[in-house]
């Protein structure tokens, strides 16, 4: 854990980590965001929290107001 290491060791660890991070492959935000947006739009139709669930399929809308008077 970081608490048990000397300052020098912590710095060495940070340095190694940075070296790895600098070399990761990155793509442009414009490309990524466009892809994300397209993915989301495709999925939006099937999202029950946006479109809602019809009463007959909804397990939470149960037996309310089901009194039958004979």
């Amino acid at each position: 854990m970081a608490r048990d290491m000397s300052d020098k060791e912590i710095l060495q660890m940070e340095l190694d980590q940075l070296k790895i991070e600098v070399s990761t492959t990155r793509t442009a935000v414009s490309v990524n965001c466009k892809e994300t947006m397209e993915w989301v739009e495709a999925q939006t139709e099937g999202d029950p929290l946006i479109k809602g669930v019809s009463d007959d399929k909804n397990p939470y809308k149960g037996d309310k107001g089901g009194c039958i008077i004979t």
Partner: protein
Amino acid sequence: MCDQTFLAITFGPCDSCSENRPLMNLYIKTEPINYCSLCMEIMACQGLASGETLKSLKAESETLRKKLEEERKKLHDVELEKVAEKAEALGELNMKTRRTLKGHGNKVLCMDWCKDKRRIVSSSQDGKVIVWDAFTTNKEHAVTMPTTWVMACAYAPSGCAIACGGLDNKCSVYPLSLDKDENLSAKKKSVAMHTNYLSGCTFTNSDMQILTSSGDGTSALWDVESGQLLQSFHGHSADVLTLDLAPSETGNTFVSGGSDKKANVWDLRSGQNVQSFDTHDSDINCVKYYPSGDAFASASDDSTCRLFDLRADREVSIYSKDSIIFGAASVDFSLSGRLLFAGYNDYTINVWDVLKGTRVAILFGHENRVSSLRVSPDGTAFCSGSWDNTLRVRQEG
């Protein structure tokens, strides 16, 4: 009389060269060090040399950090909001509370859905872990943990076990039995051992492995059957407060967030920290992967939620308002990834449009902090747990 001062020189073996020489009595940080004058000079020079390397390490660190920022900036050619201008605006949202689960005697700290979309496990400050049936609001199982502040709980993918832990520094797995009279505590299995509180736990794709995060600054992967540590993840410089596993299609990574304001992405197999993000101004309380697996969101005490894109390796959106001053404790995405639900310490839940960055709804109802929030596996409802001892299941429509 006392006009002459004498320097009493001790004579004996030097600590470093072990030759019999006159020793210089030196105290370094209250520890007596008996070196001869030659070794003393050598030590002083070495001190200088290591000081130099510390400086050069720091300088190298700085240059690498600057280079990293430049690389990231190069790819920041457009804002997410700009790209999202073409997106259709969301209609008015009408979220209603369908169920209120009452029964905990104290603050609800954590909750999780079962894959059957109907059962919920929740844990609270008083040590009780309860399994509910969300459709009927019945309590199916209740376990009393031998510790208070059960900060983490998770449902196994099979639905046959739950894992929980907190101030006891362990993660315990309880197999759930259909027999109502069975004492669940008898079958308890201690899986993870940390040196500080357990802040988060989740099963991986099977019932056999658990990923945990702890206040001791590490995360770890454990085998449930043997309790063996399979991999540990070091890199946070303070408590790790939250973790989330990548959606199964996209691979073997997980993201963790901590009190050091950093969110780190790790490779499960190698234990390597592959990406790190530190744009938050305060502790990160919750991290959640985007449904597509290419991004993740974080909620922080600095009252903002942020979206980080993993392929662009940077923060792409920030969800905040001047009127929101309380920290966000928990976030989750809707099924399509268009909505971000965030629970705050001001007792509200804000619903954000992920693409446009605007708030589409604010939900009231809880009478204390919203501590945890999860969308059900099929996306039809979401449940929020709060310090007001209740859980609320809400739906659109």
